[in-house]
């Protein structure tokens, strides 16, 4: 059977499964809709969190980015997993004890202020919206390449599916579809990785194959030594050595960690478990499930890079394998025969290099490059869709709760009935899906860039405000508001300055302290903390009821002592 037939089968089966789950888990109350009735077992929540977290970027782009960054790719690996340690130790248990529905709920109640709540609503919507557009684009790319429909049709199919189960099931439907999507995406990621590891090193575990010797047909020697050697020979940077400055890698890693811990769609997952102990446990499960993919990705990156160089360098253009021509049609790979010798020169020197490879191709085309069976190639498409749709659903829920619960119910119309609130939540998801779909089909140039900066913004706004709210009883509304505003504006300003106003300065010499816009979220976090501390020193301490809330969330269980 052809790749396309297999893809149709897999996509049809998995989508059928998601719809089945949605019908089975309909939301009947606002509590069902916002936090799945706080009844999700920790194991299931761990899987759902992992699927929620691992987006089209983790599944499609990350391994590819690492294979071109080499050791510097570390900031994605450590940044996007290390944040879970912060989440588990500093946020999840306390926010679960707090026991409400949303992140703005916490900010608004803890800082006893409508303004703080509104700022939190604004940040939550901005961050989630930027992020969801990227997911829709990812789904569009997969549809157009594997099912050969155009991107518009692809995005519309994706929108329809997400819309169906998010609107019907709310958090409950999303949680259980995410559990299924985790299984699909991890299977789809691991199968090709294991195949390639066996093919190239004879070891079935990719994490071990990563440090093993290549088989005879690949030339023998340790994989990483060989990759270093080939890279140097062709004039690329050595794979296992860093190219970026240490302080930049440091700041980017920290920004991604703080950002991970501050992303509202991840935080709200911990509101769905029954109690504090289960919140800690599900953070543990979530990181295990994430680590399976994240420790495999760098191995895949090294395998794919080696394989790519082996397959295309100095090969005659009319002899290239079939996948090469297919991906050329999508413009993700392009060949320009500069010296007209009919051969592909893939080298580090931009003057002589004749091959441009889009990073996203490394995971999507990897099974084809390695010559794996058609069903494995098709599996990757289903996995990528699962990753994109599960994250999109989680983000849409944040947008919908922010509008229906925090904006309508808590800020403007407290007398609203539960039924009305549920209706608003569903309408908000509907509108958000339409806008996200529109942006997915007509991506403005900046969206793809901005996705990466969502982390910096979350790091500079939510993360410090929540941590201070738990660990500093004395922190008051003036401090928190000042912190969130300065952190958010500083980070957004730095990014806009280098990305839109002065792109010519966007290089290591132009950056302030050598910190790239990707890493500025860390400075934003520090700015937030300093502003919050200073302002709170000169303003009155929070009311006694608020201090009691803080006292209360610090202790798990019902036996609260005052």
């Amino acid at each position, binding site marked *: 059977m052809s790749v396309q037939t297999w893809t149709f089968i897999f996509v049809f089966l998995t989508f059928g499964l998601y719809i089945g789950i949605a019908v089975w888990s309909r939301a009947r109350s606002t509590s069902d809709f916002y936090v799945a009735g706080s009844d999700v077992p920790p194991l299931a929540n761990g899987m759902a969190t992992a699927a929620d977290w691992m987006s089209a970027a983790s599944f499609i782009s990350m391994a590819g980015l690492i294979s071109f960054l080499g050791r510097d790719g570390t900031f994605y690996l450590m940044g996007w997993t290390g944040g879970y340690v912060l989440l588990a130790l500093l946020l999840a248990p306390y926010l679960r*004890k707090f026991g409400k529905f949303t992140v703005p709920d916490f900010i608004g109640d803890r800082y006893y202020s409508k303004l703080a709540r509104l700022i939190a609503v604004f940040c939550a919507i901005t961050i989630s919206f930027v992020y969801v557009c990227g997911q829709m684009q990812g789904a569009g790319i997969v549809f157009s390449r594997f099912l050969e429909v155009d991107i518009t049709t692809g995005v519309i199919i994706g929108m329809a599916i997400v819309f169906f189960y998010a609107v019907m099931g709310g958090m409950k439907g999303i949680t259980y579809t995410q559990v299924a999507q985790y299984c699909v995406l991890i299977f789809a990621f691991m199968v090709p990785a294991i195949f390639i590891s066996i093919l190239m090193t004879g070891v079935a575990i990719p994490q071990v194959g990563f440090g093993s010797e290549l088989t005879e047909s690949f030339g023998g020697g340790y994989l990483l030594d060989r990759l270093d050697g080939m890279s140097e020979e062709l004039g690329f940077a050595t794979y296992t050595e860093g190219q970026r400055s240490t302080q930049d890698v440091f700041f980017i890693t920290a920004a991604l960690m703080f950002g991970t811990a501050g992303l509202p769609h991840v935080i709200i997952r911990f509101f769905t478990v029954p109690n504090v102990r289960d919140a800690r446990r599900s953070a543990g499960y979530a990181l295990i499930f994430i680590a399976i993919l994240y420790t495999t990705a760098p191995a895949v990156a090294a395998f794919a890079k080696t394989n790519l160089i082996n397959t295309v360098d100095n090969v005659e253009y009319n002899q290239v394998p079939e996948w090469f021509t297919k991906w050329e049609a999508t413009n993700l790979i392009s060949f320009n025969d500069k010296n007209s010798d009919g051969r592909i020169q893939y080298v580090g020197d931009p003057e002589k290099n004749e091959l441009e490879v889009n990073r996203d191709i490394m995971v999507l085309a990897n099974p084809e490059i390695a010559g794996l069976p058609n069903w494995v190639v098709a599996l990757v498409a289903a996995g990528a869709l699962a990753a994109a749709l599960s994250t999109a659903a989680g983000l849409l829920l944040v947008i919908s709760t922010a509008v229906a619960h925090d904006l309508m119910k808590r800020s403007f119309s407290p007398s609203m009935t539960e039924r009305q609130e549920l209706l608003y939540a569903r309408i908000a998801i509907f509108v958000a899906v339409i806008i996200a779909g529109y942006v997915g089909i007509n991506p403005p140039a900046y969206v793809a860039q901005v996705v990466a900066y969502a982390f910096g913004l979350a790091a500079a706004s939510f993360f410090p405000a929540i941590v201070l709210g738990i660990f500093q009883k004395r922190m008051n509304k003036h401090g928190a508001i000042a912190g969130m505003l300065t952190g958010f504006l500083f980070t957004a300003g730095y990014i806009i300055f280098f990305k839109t106003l002065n792109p010519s300065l966007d290089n290591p010499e132009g950056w302030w302290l050598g910190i790239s816009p990707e890493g500025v979220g860390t400075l934003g976090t520090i700015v937030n903390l300093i502003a919050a501390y200073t302002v709170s020193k000169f303003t009155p301490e929070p009311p006694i009821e608020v201090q009691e809330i803080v*006292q209360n969330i*610090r202790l798990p269980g019902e036996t609260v002592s005052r």
Partner: protein
Amino acid sequence: MSGNADTYWKSNLKIVSALLSVWFFISFGCGILFVDYLDQFRFGGFKLGFWIAQQGAILVFVALIYIYIYLMDKLDDKYNLESTKKDGADLINQKGASE
């Protein structure tokens, strides 16, 4: 009881800061600041620094969360802080009733 709550919180802070020190040392220390120094040691096909940065740190993160779960469970038991029921369930029920 309020004395108990304070000592519970202090023990909690101690656990969290000890684990976060390890977190910082492994990720930012071994994975970034001392990575070039550690690269002189090798095992199998890996340079040590490179391995920690791309594999080892993630495994340590998982271990840290599990140590935290274990220590906090023990601490909760010591202070009799049962959380077998739904925490905050009363809050949500009250809210539902008032609507």
